[in-house]
């Protein structure tokens, strides 16, 4: 199985250093652009009651050092949400000099007026501090999308994917609300990048990072834990293939390392998940199952309270993606509206082309998977992204806009593939290709054929 080592054997050290510096510079610029956009909207985004809940639980950060204390007893708040988002809010508030007990608990049995009167709504400065924390996280996600896209295709594709995400209305809303969804997106983006890097170059560090990303994601929203088992399954398949290829002899430890580290993913992710969640320490398995049951009943309850949001089956869930991520919120339409507002040019009746870009990207990615085989880094990434989309599609019980952020993340990567591969095809077709600055082959393709 080839070690997909990116370009070390073909590029000089000076070239590699220049490449790294250029990549770092682009990452910083994209982060600054994304954070600037996010930060400019922190005060204008409408309050969502869930924000008050995440900010209310900021004290989780300081109460981690008391794992058997009040905070981690078995009751509604401890069971209601894993603590990842609360830690993030606590960290953000602490770094910005705010109190970690900013407000009471929003009671969804009553309206906004009562919750305002009863102290369940934080002050504006606390709310904005929480939102600014998420603005940073959202900008990091944008930067990671660039890195993922540039690994699959080229830097132009990576930039396109990053900007697609940065300007998507759903991302803009969620990155300027004090919720936990951006932390989930950050975990997933980290996982995707670590997976690419790991299959390229199977090192313990990348394997550890994958497990940590899944663990942190699970400690934010339970769903990512399933990806640990997807990776473990991939590892089992890899080992079985190696055994088969090795004339049914056991492969050496060095050969089997790639698959073995993948088998460790549920262990690493599970450890991180439990370690971050002291509520689970006294009964990790029992209380984890109770959490899953709680989320299931909560989703059913939400579907009863808001019947318009109920999603009856996976087919309907898939259909909602087009509505939420194209019809209602679209980067391409948003950009056309920006052009009309900010420039002398006017675009009448702006349309969304997001799903065209996403669809082409999915086809191109499938082509890469078929051409390169299932053990290629891009194939591993494609498997992970498909698993994440599948898990959301199967588990979607209510149509709340923030549940679509992981889908949007995957869409952004696919847009990167579309633009990057499209540009590469154009350059390949250009008669004066020798003078073009876009690489004729992707980073991974150069490594695979070197």
């Amino acid at each position: 199985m080839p070690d997909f080592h990116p370009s070390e054997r073909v590029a000089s050290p000076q070239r590699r250093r220049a490449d790294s510096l250029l990549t770092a510079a682009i990452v910083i610029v994209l982060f600054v652009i994304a954070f600037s956009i996010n930060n400019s909207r922190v005060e204008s985004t409408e309050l969502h009651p869930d924000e008050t809940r995440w900010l209310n639980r900021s004290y989780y950060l300081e109460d981690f050092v008391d794992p058997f204390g009040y905070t981690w007893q078995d009751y509604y708040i401890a069971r209601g949400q894993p603590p990842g988002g609360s830690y993030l809010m606590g960290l953000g508030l602490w770094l910005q000099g705010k109190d970690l007990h900013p407000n009471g608990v929003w009671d969804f049995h009553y309206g906004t007026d009562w919750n305002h009167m009863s102290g369940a709504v934080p002050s504006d400065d606390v709310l904005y501090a929480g939102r600014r924390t998420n603005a940073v996280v959202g900008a990091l996600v944008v930067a990671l999308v660039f890195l993922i896209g540039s690994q699959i295709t080229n830097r132009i594709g990576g930039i396109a994917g990053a900007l697609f995400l940065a300007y998507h209305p759903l991302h803009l809303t969620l990155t300027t609300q004090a919720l936990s969804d951006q932390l989930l997106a950050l975990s997933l983006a980290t996982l995707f990048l670590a997976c690419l890097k790991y299959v390229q170059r199977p090192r313990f560090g990348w394997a550890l990072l994958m497990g940590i990303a899944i663990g942190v994601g699970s400690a934010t929203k339970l769903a990512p834990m399933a990806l640990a088992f997807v990776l473990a399954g991939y590892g089992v398949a890899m080992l079985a293939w190696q055994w088969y290829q090795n004339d049914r002899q056991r492969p050496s430890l060095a050969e089997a390392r790639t698959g073995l580290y993948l088998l460790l993913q549920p262990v690493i992710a599970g450890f991180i998940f439990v370690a971050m969640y002291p509520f689970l320490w006294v009964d990790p398995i029992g209380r984890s199952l109770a959490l899953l049951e709680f989320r299931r009943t909560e989703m059913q309850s939400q579907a009863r309270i808001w019947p318009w949001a109920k999603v009856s089956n996976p087919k309907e869930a898939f259909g909602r993606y087009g509505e939420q991520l194209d019809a209602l919120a679209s980067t391409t339409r948003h950009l056309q509206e920006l052009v009309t507002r900010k420039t002398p040019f006017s675009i009448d009746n702006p349309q969304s082309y997001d799903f065209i870009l996403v669809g082409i990207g999915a086809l191109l990615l499938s082509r890469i998977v078929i051409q390169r085989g299932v053990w290629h880094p891009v194939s591993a990434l494609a498997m992970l992204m498909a698993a994440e989309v599948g898990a959301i599609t199967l588990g979607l019980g209510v149509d709340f806009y923030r549940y679509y952020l992981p889908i949007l993340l995957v869409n952004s990567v696919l847009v990167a593939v579309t633009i990057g591969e499209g540009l590469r095809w154009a350059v390949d077709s250009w008669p004066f290709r020798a003078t073009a600055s876009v690489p004729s082959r992707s980073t991974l393709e150069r490594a695979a054929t070197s």
Partner: protein
Amino acid sequence: MTLRLHRPHPIPFLRAWLFLVLISVFGLSAVNATSTVAQEGPFPVRRGDPTVKVYDAAGILTKGEENSLQSDATRASTLGIDFLVYTRLTLDTPEQSQAFADRLRTEWKIESSPGADDGIVFLLAVDPSSSHASRVVVSVGPNALPIRQLSVEVFNRIVTDEMTPNLERGEFGMSLYYGTRRLLNFAEYTPPDPEPRTTTQKLLGGMGNVFAVGTVLVAIGGWFAAPMLLERRQTLRPARRTIVAYGLAVAAIAILTGLLGILGRSAFASLIALTAVIWAGGLLPLVAPVIMSSDPQDIETGGARA
């Protein structure tokens, strides 16, 4: 248990006076009261349906407020709490109003289950002749409090700082909302007290603390001791085999410490164990290639020296 409550300042009683006029004209009575000025007379008899928890004998609540308070009471019952809301026009002294509330609670059997004696009665005693004398009166069964983190002191503060000021402003419904909804908020959204540790847990926790100290010693001291024991030399760059042995030793004692800490509910032991596991299982494999000896002899012999 009864709560002594603060007498409020004079408040506007427009609605109370209006009702006074109405009952004077029409002779209406919400319960078996004979007075048209204040509802004195025989002790009220409870209506048939025990699920009705709001009695606006004074007629000072709107229909919406009654319904909302009734919803609160229904929600409370699902949490194992039984409370009653009662309003009355009365000339009673504070002590008499308190006695009335206590009697309501006991005779109407306001409790979560027979014999529990854990019910709560919120009584708005409205004095039509003197606004100065109106008050919030709460009767709490001896087994009612604490409810999660709602102690007697906290409940007192709710009555004094939130219910009473609203009563002063003539916001009768809002005054009661602060009582019932704060109660529900504490019951549902505050944690229960941690269970007191058993003798066994204290013993295990103590052992965990001792092992935690041992874990720290092994983690720090072991780094220096391991090469001396396994390679018979002093070095800060041990061979791979030494690092593996060191890591396994730290992990093993950390896991044991963690188990003792969790079983014994010891935060110190648990957190030390967690730190040690992260070091041995996560960070050490990452830094090992950098810090371990690159001496070819060490790589070949695993650090074993003649």
